C-alpha cells in the first residue's frame, strides 16, 4: 500500500463519482460511472480485496456500464441536471 | 350464591342468530315471518325457562372461550340480566307480529334484510343482558350498534343516511372513544373485568380516576342517550316504526341504560360511589337530561320525535334510580326498564298504527283521530298514563320506588325533579289524547273511511297496553327480580 497512489485513487473515485452525477449528458454519466467503478475496483485491489475487485471490474466497470449505455440508448441522453 | 353451569344463556343468545339463514333463504314471506316468529317464541321460552332458577336465587353461567388471559367470552344470568332479557325477548314476539302488519301494510322494501338484522339485534340485546363481564358486554354492545345501522337506515334515502351517520358516530364513536379506554383502564387497574355484585374497582384507584372512569362509562354508553350524547335518538326516528319501537324504546336504548346500571353496580359498586360521593354529579346529569328532554318533548310536533325525547328523559330515570344508590332507588330504576318498555312500546305501536292507517306523522294533524281509531288511541292513553306514572299503570310502581329511593337517600331535590318531570310528561302527552278524543266533530281532520290499522298492528298494541295495566297488579316477576338484584348490589 503506497499512500500517494492510494490518495490519488481516492481523489479520482470522488471526482468520478461527482462527475457522474454532475455531467449533463447521460451517456457521459454512464461512462463516468464506469470509470468510477473501475477506480473503486483499483482501490479495493489495493486493499487486498482481490475477489471483490475482480467482481467489480467485471460487473461495475463492465456489464453495469453496458447496461447503462443500453438503457440510455433506449431512452434519451438528455438531462436537465 | 349458587351457580348453575348451563348452556341455556348461550342458546338464548344464539337462537335468533341461528334463525337468520332460515329467514334469509325462505321462499315466501309467510315462511320467513314464520321463522322469525318461531325464533322469537323459542328465545322467550329459553329465557323464561331460566326464570325459576334465577328467582330461586341461583345464577346460571356459561363460559365460552378465553379470548384474553383471565378474560373470556362468558355469560352469567343474574336477576338484573334476567329482568332485561325477559322484557326484550317477550317484546320481540309482540313486535314480530306488529312488524308483519306494519311492513306489509306499507309494502316496505327489503323486508328480508329487515327481519335478519332485527334478529341479530335481539341476539345482541340478550347477549348484553346475560354477559358475565365487561368485555362480553362490549362485544354485544358493538354488535348491536352495527346490526341496527341497516335498520335505522332502512329507507335508504338522504335523511336515513344522515341519521345513520349520526347514529353510528354517536353510538360506536362514543363506545370506541370512551368505553374502550375506560374498560382498558379498569382492566389495567384491577386485572379483571368480571362483574361482581360489590364492584371491582374498590381500593384500586383514587377518587379522580374513579370519577373519570365513571363519566367515561356513563357518556360512553351513548345508547342511553344521556345528554349531551342524545341527539342520535330523535334522528334515528326515521327508521320504520317497529324498529323505533323495539330498538329505540326497548332494546337499543335499554341496552345503553342497562350497561350503565350494570357498570355502576357491578364495576364500581354502590359502596365505592358512596364513599367517593360520586352519586351527586351523576344525579345532576340524569336530572338535567330528564328535565331538558321533557321540555324539548313539549315543543315537538312530530309524534315520533316527541316520543324520542320522552324516551331520552325516561331513560335517565333509570340512571337516576341507580345513581341514588339506595335499594329502593335501584329497584325503581330497574323496574322502570320493564315498565317504560311496555308503556313506550305501546306508544310507538300507536304512532305506527296511525301512520299505517292515515299516513300522518304530526300531532297537529291528528285532531279527532280518536273517533276513527278508538282502540289505538285508548291504548295510547294507557301507554301515556304509564309513562307519566299514574295508576292504574305499571309506570306508577317504578316512579313510586324512585320517589321512595330519593327519600331514603335524603335527596329532596331529586324528588322535586321527579314530580316536576311527571307534570311535564303529562304536559306533552295529554294534549295529544285530548286532541284525539275531545274535539268538536267539525274540527276533525279525518274522513269517515279512515279505520283502524290492520289487525296485526292493533293486536300487539292492545296486548302491550293491557300488560301495562296488569303490571301494576301483578308486577311479581319483574319486581322480584329487581328487588333481588337491588339487594345484591346494594348489599342489603
Amino acid at each position, binding site marked *: 500500500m503506497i499512500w500517494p497512489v492510494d490518495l490519488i485513487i481516492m481523489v479520482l473515485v470522488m471526482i468520478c463519482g461527482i462527475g457522474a452525477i454532475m455531467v449533463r449528458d447521460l451517456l457521459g454519466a454512464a461512462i463516468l460511472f464506469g470509470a468510477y467503478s473501475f477506480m473503486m475496483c483499483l482501490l479495493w485491489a489495493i486493499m487486498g480485496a482481490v475477489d471483490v475487485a475482480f467482481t467489480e471490474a467485471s460487473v461495475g466497470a463492465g456489464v453495469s456500464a453496458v*447496461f447503462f449505455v443500453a438503457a440510455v440508448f433506449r431512452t434519451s441522453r438528455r438531462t436537465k441536471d | 350464591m349458587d351457580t348453575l353451569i348451563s348452556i341455556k344463556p348461550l342458546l338464548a343468545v344464539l337462537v335468533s342468530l341461528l334463525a337468520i339463514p332460515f329467514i334469509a333463504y325462505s321462499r315466501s314471506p309467510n315462511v320467513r315471518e314464520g321463522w322469525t316468529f318461531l325464533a322469537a317464541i323459542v328465545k322467550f321460552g329459553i329465557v323464561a325457562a331460566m326464570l325459576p332458577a334465577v328467582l330461586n336465587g341461583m345464577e346460571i353461567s356459561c363460559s365460552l372461550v378465553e379470548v384474553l388471559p383471565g378474560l373470556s367470552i362468558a355469560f352469567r344470568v343474574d336477576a338484573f340480566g334476567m329482568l332485561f332479557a325477559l322484557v326484550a325477548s317477550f317484546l320481540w314476539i309482540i313486535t314480530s307480529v306488529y312488524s308483519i302488519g306494519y311492513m306489509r301494510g306499507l309494502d316496505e322494501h327489503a323486508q328480508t334484510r329487515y327481519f335478519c338484522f332485527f334478529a341479530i339485534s335481539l341476539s345482541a340485546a340478550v347477549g348484553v343482558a346475560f354477559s358475565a363481564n365487561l368485555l362480553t358486554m362490549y362485544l354485544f354492545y358493538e354488535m348491536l350498534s352495527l346490526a341496527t345501522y341497516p335498520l335505522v337506515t332502512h329507507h335508504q334515502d338522504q335523511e336515513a343516511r344522515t341519521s345513520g351517520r349520526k347514529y353510528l358516530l354517536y353510538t360506536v364513536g362514543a363506545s370506541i372513544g370512551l368505553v374502550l379506554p375506560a374498560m382498558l383502564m379498569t382492566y389495567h387497574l384491577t386485572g379483571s373485568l368480571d362483574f361482581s355484585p360489590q364492584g371491582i374497582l374498590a381500593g384500586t384507584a383514587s377518587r379522580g380516576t374513579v370519577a373519570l372512569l365513571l363519566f367515561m362509562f356513563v357518556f360512553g354508553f351513548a345508547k342511553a342517550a344521556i345528554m349531551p350524547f342524545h341527539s342520535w335518538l330523535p334522528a334515528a326516528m326515521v327508521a320504520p316504526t317497529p324498529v323505533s319501537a323495539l330498538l329505540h324504546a326497548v332494546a337499543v336504548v335499554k341496552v345503553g341504560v342497562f350497561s350503565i346500571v350494570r357498570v355502576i353496580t357491578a364495576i364500581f359498586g354502590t359502596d365505592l360511589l358512596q364513599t367517593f360521593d360520586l352519586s351527586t354529579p351523576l344525579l345532576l346529569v340524569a336530572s338535567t337530561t330528564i328535565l331538558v328532554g321533557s321540555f324539548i318533548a313539549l315543543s315537538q310536533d312530530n309524534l315520533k320525535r316527541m316520543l324520542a325525547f320522552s324516551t331520552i328523559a325516561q331513560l335517565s330515570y333509570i340512571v337516576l334510580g341507580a345513581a341514588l344508590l339506595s335499594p329502593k332507588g335501584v329497584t325503581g330504576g330497574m323496574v322502570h326498564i320493564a315498565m317504560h318498555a311496555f308503556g313506550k312500546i305501546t306508544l310507538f305501536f300507536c304512532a305506527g298504527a296511525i301512520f299505517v292507517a292515515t299516513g300522518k306523522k304530526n300531532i297537529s294533524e291528528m285532531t279527532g283521530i280518536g273517533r276513527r281509531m278508538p282502540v289505538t288511541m285508548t291504548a295510547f292513553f294507557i301507554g301515556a298514563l304509564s309513562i307519566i306514572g299514574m295508576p292504574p299503570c305499571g309506570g306508577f310502581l317504578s316512579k313510586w320506588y324512585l320517589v321512595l329511593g330519593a327519600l331514603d337517600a335524603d335527596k329532596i331535590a331529586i324528588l322535586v325533579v321527579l314530580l316536576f318531570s311527571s307534570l311535564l310528561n303529562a304536559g306533552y302527552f295529554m294534549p295529544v289524547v285530548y286532541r284525539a278524543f275531545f274535539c268538536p266533530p267539525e274540527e276533525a281532520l279525518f274522513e269517515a273511511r279512515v279505520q283502524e290499522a290492520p289487525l296485526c298492528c292493533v293486536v300487539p298494541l292492545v296486548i302491550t297496553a293491557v300488560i301495562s295495566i296488569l303490571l301494576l297488579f301483578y308486577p311479581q316477576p319483574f319486581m322480584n327480580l329487581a328487588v333481588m338484584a337491588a339487594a345484591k348490589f346494594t348489599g342489603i
Partner: protein
Amino acid sequence: MESLLSNFLAKYNYWVYIGLVMIGMYAMIAKRNLVKKIIGMNIVQTAVILFYVSIGAKKGKTIPIIAHGHEETGHHAAQAIDYISPLPHVLMLTAIVVSVATLGVALALAIKIYRQYGTLEEDEIALRINEP
C-alpha cells in the same frame, strides 16, 4: 491537534466512504433525472461496499489466498494474522451482485417509464401525469 490529525489520517478510508454515501444520497434526492438517481443509488451501494472492504483490510498483510495451499495442507496451518480478513470480501461479493441486480431492474423500469411518458425527467413526468 496532532492526535486529531493522526486520527483523521488513520481512518481516511472511512471518510471517503462517508463522502460517497453523501454524494450518492444527494444525487438520489436532488436530481430529477431518473438515470441520475439510479447512478446515485449505485454510488451509495458501492460506498457501503467500500466501507466493508475497509473493515477487512490489514496493513501490510497479504490477500486471503493461502500460498501453496495444496502442498502444506494440514501441516502447518495458516496464521490468521498474516492474511487480510476474508469475510467482508465474501459479503461484498454478494452485495455487488445485489447491486447489479437492482440496477438491472431499475433500468428496466426507467425504460418502461420512458416508453410511457417519453421523458426521464421527474418534473416533466409529473406534468404528463397531470395533463389529462
